[in-house]
């Protein structure tokens, strides 16, 4: 980590209020290009709010935020073109086929027909889905769907991809294969911004931030955090940080 770090997300004094309630209370952090950034926090800590702001879906109440070099207030269109997004809740349309999904999302991000055909072929080859080209998404096992969803989310080669609890409920092998994919994307230079409830996954991240009650309670590499709190895994780090103020705030 000695090379010059290029930032892809810069957040300065981000505040988001809903009425009197501060969902995000003066956040400050950077995400560097090519890193896997783990964004952790308890339910209701304000993670989703931050992600929505970073994706350009909500405007913050105040603060300076740049994503992929663009300003969050007036360049949301450029931001959207340069990011990918995948969540556990929605990823692909279940009632259309594998290829149709790829074509759809390729089209949404403005890829030419030729590019779509080329990337779709490449993608299905890599994921070993060639024989499933015309199968409905709903007929694929969950693990495959998630792999495909991730590939589709980065089909347009975004600079940055947001993953909102991408691995909920899948078996341990599939979960790890999914992380292989994340690593591969990071290796290609795509920055990964990921939330998860699996604390072992926090260990796969280059750096991890932990949110408590709308604030970033700590942010560092997993090994530094473990050292700082004198514990042996990220689960204990999380418990130490997040337990200070238990489930009183919503």
């Amino acid at each position: 980590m000695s090379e010059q770090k290029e930032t892809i997300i810069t957040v300065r004094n981000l505040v988001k209020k809903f009425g009197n309630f501060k969902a995000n209370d003066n956040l400050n952090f950077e995400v560097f290009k090519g890193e896997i950034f783990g964004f952790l926090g308890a339910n209701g800590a304000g993670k989703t709010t931050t992600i929505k702001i970073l994706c350009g879906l909500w405007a913050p109440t105040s603060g300076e935020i740049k994503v992929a070099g663009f300003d969050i207030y007036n360049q949301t269109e450029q931001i959207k073109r340069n990011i990918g997004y995948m969540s556990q809740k929605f990823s692909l349309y279940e009632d259309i086929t594998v290829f149709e999904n790829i074509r759809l999302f390729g089209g949404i991000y403005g890829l030419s027909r030729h590019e779509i055909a080329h990337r779709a072929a490449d993608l299905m080859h890599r994921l070993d889905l060639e024989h499933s080209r015309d199968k409905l998404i709903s007929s694929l096992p969950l693990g495959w769907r998630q792999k495909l969803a991730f590939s589709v989310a980065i089909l347009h080669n975004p600079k940055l991809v947001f993953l909102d609890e991408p691995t909920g409920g899948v078996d341990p092998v599939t979960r790890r294969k999914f992380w292989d994919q994340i690593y591969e994307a990071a290796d290609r230079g795509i920055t990964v911004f990921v939330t998860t409830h699996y604390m072992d996954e926090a260990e796969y991240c280059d750096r991890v931030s932990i949110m408590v009650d709308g604030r970033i309670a700590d942010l560092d590499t997993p090994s530094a955090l473990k050292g700082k709190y004198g514990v042996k895994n990220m689960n204990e780090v999380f418990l130490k940080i997040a337990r200070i103020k238990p489930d009183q705030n919503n």
Partner: protein
Amino acid sequence: MALNINNIHKSFEGLQALNNITFSVKEGELFGLIGPDGAGKTTLFRIITTLLLPDRGEVDLFGLDVLKNYKKIRQLVGYMAGRFSLYHDLTVEENLKFYATVFGTTIEKNYDLIKDVYCQIEPFKTRKAGKLSGGMKQKLALSCALIHKPRLLVLDEPTTGVDAVSRTEFWDMLKRLQKKGITILVSTPYMDEASLCNRVGLIQKGNLLSVNKPENIIAEYQRELLSVSSDNLYKLVNDLRNEKDTHSAFLFGQSVHLTRKDRKESVKQVIKYLRDKGHGSIHINVIKPGIEDCFMDLMHKEDEFLLSG
């Protein structure tokens, strides 16, 4: 025995959801059913709670057959469904009160039992259930499932999608309930929660892979497990997978868990191989497996068994 499950089969539209499931839960036990989404956990729980009929096999609860005595069984079981079945437009207190009347009791009568759980959300009792955080919904749903003093508590994925703090607190509560003599059957996709149960069943694709105490499942693991780390984790896992003697290589936190086909001199060989590949700061040591290692190993065996069969 609180619960006996014998040769349960169940399929939906030709898809096998449960295949020959047999196990039993002792009275007063905290039993965990562990497996990913789609493994068949919910289906099995619905059969136990009389909501579904098995295609084949028997289930008996406290000596009562699930098929014939469903009415009696429904009095004995507290069931917390996967989606926290709460009425979002009713307040916390109204939800609890409703479930109390449905079971012919009152909050006051069984307050002792739920106090431990309910007191944490009682300050918010006039809040609508839909406006609660995940952790609070979970506690309310548990209070509702407990309100009629069930002998068996069946909890379907109570910790899914709930943050690590709430999860830990939830397990602490379960332990305390267990001390009060309630038998608890709980399912979870989080492998790390296995160690919190007295016994666990590992389930995958409708098949029960193993039923045992967590420590015994770990003791039954037969391979030598190596934890490998180097300065480049992604390259490390790829290189290890391409090595000819590798049986499996998976990411576990900041290291890779490696098993090999050949046990001879494995550490030395791996170090040499990784040095040749240009890795620096290589650490290898033999470690004890966790439940997740065991699950992955059992999954692999099951797949091989199915392929050969």
